[in-house]
């Protein structure tokens, strides 16, 4: 696949990951799925990119635990741009609102059950609002197809993360990366 047809990605802040991704970073205005055994796995993978996106809001919808402010600040996240939303059953709605608003650089979503239609809406909202959408899901989700252009399986490793590229638009799947923790 010609690399030129894939829009330039948003640098992940991790050189090895940028190299493995077809656009050289997180696909812009797109939905990325992170599949982990524990819902919080993969948050650290996303943080370096979030730390560079300072101009718009970062919205966390229904995170599994409280994000620890001193740790986020130490990793360069602008806390005054961060919003934590407890949406419960309305997680999909809240995420869509955030993505569409153009006021958010990224929206991270946990929990909820997602069918194909909802995932397409999320992808469309991300494109509309030119925002990064990260959906943290159970590994079982890999069995159903998804409109997300990028799907990663994230597993903790003693030194950081073991990341498997399950799917990526305009690039090769199957790569297994060993990434440092941040």
């Amino acid at each position, binding site marked *: 696949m010609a690399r030129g047809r894939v829009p330039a990605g948003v640098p992940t802040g991790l050189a090895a990951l940028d190299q493995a991704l077809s656009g050289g970073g997180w696909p812009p205005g797109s939905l990325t799925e992170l599949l982990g055994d524990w819902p919080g796995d993969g*948050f*650290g993978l996303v*943080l370096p990119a979030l730390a560079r996106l300072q101009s718009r809001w970062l919205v966390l919808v229904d995170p599994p635990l409280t994000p620890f402010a001193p*740790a986020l600040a130490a990793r360069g996240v602008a806390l*005054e741009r961060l919003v934590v*939303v407890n949406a419960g059953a309305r997680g999909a709605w809240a995420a869509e*609102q955030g993505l569409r608003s153009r*006021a958010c650089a990224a929206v991270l979503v946990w929990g909820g059950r997602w069918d194909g239609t909802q995932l397409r809406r999320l992808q469309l909202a991300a494109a509309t609002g030119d925002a990064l959408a990260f959906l943290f899901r159970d590994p079982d989700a890999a069995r159903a197809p998804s409109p997300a252009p990028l799907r990663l399986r994230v597993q*903790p490793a003693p030194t950081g993360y073991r990341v498997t590229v399950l799917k990526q638009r305009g690039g090769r799947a199957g790569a297994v990366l060993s990434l440092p923790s941040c």
Partner: protein
Amino acid sequence: MRWLALYLPHLPLEVLGRACADDLPLAIGGERILNCNPAAAAQGIRPGLKVGAARALCAALRIQARRPAAERAALERLAAWSMRCTSLVSLAPPRSLLLDVAASLRLFGGARALLGQVGEGVAALGYQGRLALAPTPLGALVLAIHQGADGPIIPDGAALRAALDPLPLAALGLRPRELDDLTAMGLRRVADLLRLPRAGLRARLGPRRVDWLERLLGEAPDPRLPFAPPAEYRGVLELPAEVELAPALVFPCRRLLAELGGLLLGRQAGVQRLDWRLGHARCPDTHLHLGAIAPLADPERWLELLRGHLERLDLPAPVRAVGLVATDLRSLNPTAGDLFPGATADASGGPALLDRLRARLGPDAVRGLALVADHRPDHAWRWAEPGELSRGIPRANRPLWLLPQPQPLTQRAGRPWLNGALDLGQERERIDTGWWDDRPVARDYFVATSRRGERLWVYRELRGRGDWYLHGRFG
């Protein structure tokens, strides 16, 4: 063509009935019907009809007494609203407003376009208005009352005269005695009167009436007292029929918001807080407070927020009246909406987004995070208003996630255990502090690795039995 007159023929009725759609028959009257809405008219109700006869015609007819104070208040709210079109509005009680539109004609795209916009705006507020544009205030007023259904536009003095000439003498608001006197002279139309020499008229009608005529025709100046827009908004709508379901309140609320919107536009102001009062028949009022992150001027934005609240609202009883109060008007300057100086234009949608999320999910469901300068992990952060800047101690060696409560870990052979033995790293961090308040902390923290490879933040109590706890996850 400087003055726009807005005449509200049905104001006495509308201050009572404008909260509902026009499908319920409603009339104003004491002994006789003064005014009625189209639904009542369709049942044969006419002004002048005796109340008993009216009830016989239409059993469902609601008849209410006239309320002059409410009419005056409504007129003032409309005056405030109409400041969207001009900076000079003058009250012409009991049922009219005068707008000096000399400077706004071009801005609004000409006389016809301006009349159209005012007419539509007034209708959206629930009033029937009649409009006329004329060179003099009195000329505009007389024509609005008598020809306002067509919205006449009178460019100059000659055209004004031509428009007034064919009107009956009664159009000039003469007292019955004056009218009888003039009719006895054989005068029928305005033209007949204006043709007479002024000196004779002065002798017959008195100087004040002739002054009035001269102001009408623009021969004498007619300065008008400018209406000063209020510094706050207070509006009430009585609902002619009780409303049982909260979402159905959107209709009357929208009208109050439209009035507020006009006032805000006229004052170049926004509000950050709205206080709604829902009046019930037999239980205390329901109060609803809407807040916005930044001052809002657009009534549609407020309506959107209100919708979210109404969806979540359980009414204790049916609603009979809706009140809206906005006291904290803030002038909008071009940068006031920008929460983040130096941020890209896109972040300006932030306040709107947060307001929308809060309206639907509740105020506590949308929060920011802030640092606190405290060494105890549990006290090193707090919930904050989104956008709040804080100072504290960023810590690179801390986990990304904190458990709400430390979770006790079992021990095997003196080592902490979680689905297998935890591998404690080399680094130990001692936190022994907090002796100055009631929550001292004395712990040794470790970054542990589980058998699955997860990195966990665990600690051992330095006091007591030396128990182990899980406190965070690196994720």
